[in-house]
């Protein structure tokens, strides 16, 4: 059992001074933006109202927080893990291995448990959609280390592919699902081919710009997409050809069941579950292939990869296209589930949310992403009245995670192969190696 770090002597006067400084900064930051509120008056002109109480509370919290931080942590850098006994940590290590089957079992059983609870089923479908998007983005961000801020663009491509193909050609969901994935990954390649030569941070901006371009085109190309009105009446999926209705030849009558609206919801639930699991399965398999190894290597050090002869552009392109393909699948599922899509559903906020899920779950960790999606979306559904704070919390959480646990809050995933650090090479090792090579060379001469 490792002992907790020794408490360093805390200088109370210094701590107080620093906390006061933090409070003054907080006052400067919030006095106008939080202490005053703009309202629109009856004549359309703006007027202000003061909120000194709120300002005082926030500044007080900052002061107290800074004081506590100074007194407890001070100058030391501590990790909470040091306080956890070794035995507990040992057990915690096997927890992820148990968590995955448990979660899967729960996910499979959920429609049976909540059969009569439409609300829970809808929530489950939403969470699973984000789990799938998270896993798809995880290939790009978590494995290949490419920051994609326009992921929602591929989601939109998938959704609009299905909606438009169904509207104009009457294609069914099962034909459109693979088509949507293929089209989305084509878009991934079209976008990726020119921009993947760029450095990581440029890539982030370009993908973000691309996401906006797609959204603006969807919004303004009225003739094709109906613009802001969106596309409605998108056909619902059938049970492999059997529609979910009360007519002869429908799902209920074919199997001799009492017709129920819930059948379709449960079917949609399992559909997205299967799609998500396929995403997960493909990712897990891919990462054992040379291409998966190359992705991980690329994430760790791009220059080293290039030096070792990996074609970085092609490697990135495959990651990008694979991620886009799964977003396309998820998009066409979204379209068939909603029955209505409009550009409103594909804003930058959506990309940011999926990215937040991947970051919080631990980039590269499959189970972490699933847990993060479930916890965050479930949590926000639970605290409904705080819905407006959702993105604020996501944003701050992304900053804090990067500072405290940059490899993810829920789980961490280190590369499959990892260099632990520079190895110490002692004089004796060198001497032995020299001697060996010397004897070898002599042996050749003889």
């Amino acid at each position, binding site marked *: 059992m490792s002992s907790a770090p020794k408490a360093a002597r805390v200088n109370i006067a210094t701590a107080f001074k620093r906390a006061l400084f933090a409070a003054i*900064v907080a006052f*400067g*930051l919030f*006095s*106008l*933006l*939080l202490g*005053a*509120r*703009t309202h*629109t008056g009856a004549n*359309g*002109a*703006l*007027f*202000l109202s003061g909120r000194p109480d709120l300002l005082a509370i926030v500044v007080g919290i900052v002061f107290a927080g800074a004081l506590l931080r100074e007194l407890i942590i001070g100058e030391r850098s501590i990790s909470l893990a040091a306080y956890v006994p070794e035995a507990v940590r040992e057990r915690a290590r096997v927890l992820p291995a148990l968590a995955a089957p448990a979660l899967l079992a729960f996910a499979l059983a959920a429609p049976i448990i909540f059969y009569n609870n439409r609300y829970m089923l809808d929530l489950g479908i939403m969470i699973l959609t984000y789990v799938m998007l998270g896993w798809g983005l995880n290939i790009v*961000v978590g494995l290949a*280390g490419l*920051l994609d*801020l326009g992921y929602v663009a591929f989601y939109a491509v998938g959704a609009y592919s299905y909606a438009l193909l169904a509207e104009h050609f009457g294609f069914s969901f099962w034909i459109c699902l693979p088509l949507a994935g293929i089209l989305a990954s084509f878009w991934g390649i079209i976008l990726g081919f*020119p*921009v993947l*030569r*760029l*450095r*990581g*941070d*440029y890539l*982030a*901006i*370009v993908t*973000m*710009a*691309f996401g*906006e*371009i797609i959204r*603006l*085109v969807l*919004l*303004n190309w009225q003739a094709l997409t109906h613009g802001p009105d969106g596309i409605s009446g998108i056909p619902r999926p059938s049970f492999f050809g059997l529609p979910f209705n009360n007519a002869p030849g429908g799902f209920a009558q074919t199997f001799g069941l009492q017709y129920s609206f819930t059948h379709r919801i449960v079917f949609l639930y399992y559909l997205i579950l299967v799609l998500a699991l396929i995403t997960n399965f493909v990712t897990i398999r891919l990462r054992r292939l040379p291409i998966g190894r190359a992705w991980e290597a690329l994430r760790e050090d791009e*220059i080293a990869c290039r030096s070792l002869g990996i074609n970085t552009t092609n490697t990135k392109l495959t990651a990008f296209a694979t991620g886009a393909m799964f977003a396309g699948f998820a998009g066409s599922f979204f379209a068939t589930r909603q029955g209505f899509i409009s550009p409103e559903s594909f804003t*930058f906020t959506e990309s*940011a949310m999926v*990215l*937040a899920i991947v*970051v919080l779950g631990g*980039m590269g960790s499959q189970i972490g992403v699933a847990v993060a999606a479930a916890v965050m979306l479930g949590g926000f559904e639970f605290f409904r009245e705080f819905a*407006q*704070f959702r*993105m*604020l919390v*996501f*944003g*701050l*959480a*992304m*900053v804090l995670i*990067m*500072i405290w646990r*940059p490899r993810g809050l829920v789980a961490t995933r280190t590369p499959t192969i990892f260099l632990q650090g520079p190895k110490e090479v002692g004089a004796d090792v060198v001497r032995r190696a020299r001697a060996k090579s010397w004897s070898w060379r002599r042996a050749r001469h003889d």
Partner: protein
Amino acid sequence: MEYFLQQLINGVTLGAIYGLIAIGYTMVYGIIGMINFAHGDIFMVGAFVALIAFLALVALGVTAVPLALFLVLLIAMAVTALYGWTVERIAYRPLRRSFRLAPLISAIGMSIALENFVQVAQGARVKPLPPLIPGGYTLMHDGGFAVRLSNVQIIVVVTTVVLMGIFSWLVARTRLGRDMRACEQDLKMASLLGVDVNRTISYTFVIGAALAAVAGIMHLLYYGVIDFYIGFIAGVKAFTAAVLGGIGSLPGAMVGGLLIGLIETFWSAYFSIEYKDVAAFSILVIVLIFLPTGILGRPEVEKV
């Protein structure tokens, strides 16, 4: 011809605003090699601080517009600079030695947080402000079309030119500017030679944020309406301007800003106004692919 001249005036005004924001991007990129994703939102915060400060001054009885505007300028620059400083201190400094994507993700988080903080604190509705500086000049009159140069446009361009002058002097002639240029060349070497790197980086963020605040005030005066989302679009365009001019280059940021302002205005005037943002974003993609060093930038040397 008259129509063209009018668009030229509008484009230069818009370009001045973009240029001021672009300086913040290019300075930070030059020194710590990172895209300060939250800079667009700092600009938005500047606009909101200016709006609230103006309303507060009016409520306090300061009704003389020039005096009020001057005070608003000072307040907005100070408060926004504080935001810039805090963002760097909280979100970027602890990550300077972290892995490659960490500062970028942190910056995106900060951008989302700032945007939603303003939305929660001030509401999502657009905030209108009646025109404060009326009037202008008619330069040319031909048939039905008059070329107008409004006083706001004159103020925007003159302020930008003055600020650019001050800023260039700061970088070229002062101790701080020398430190900044040293940090830009080699962070580690500069610190070995006695430059306080942390302080220099902090000042960089402070100056960038203050300039963004001025841009925010100009946006407020020029368009007369702001909302919490303006930072996103303006941020991407200003970043495009920085890339187009050559990221890391200060004159490049101004040239790029001017070009982006002109392109956007002419595109809206002669092609379609719906696709003006698409045009700006497409330029970003095209420039990054075909001219990654920009117009005035230096080729980037990759260091291991």
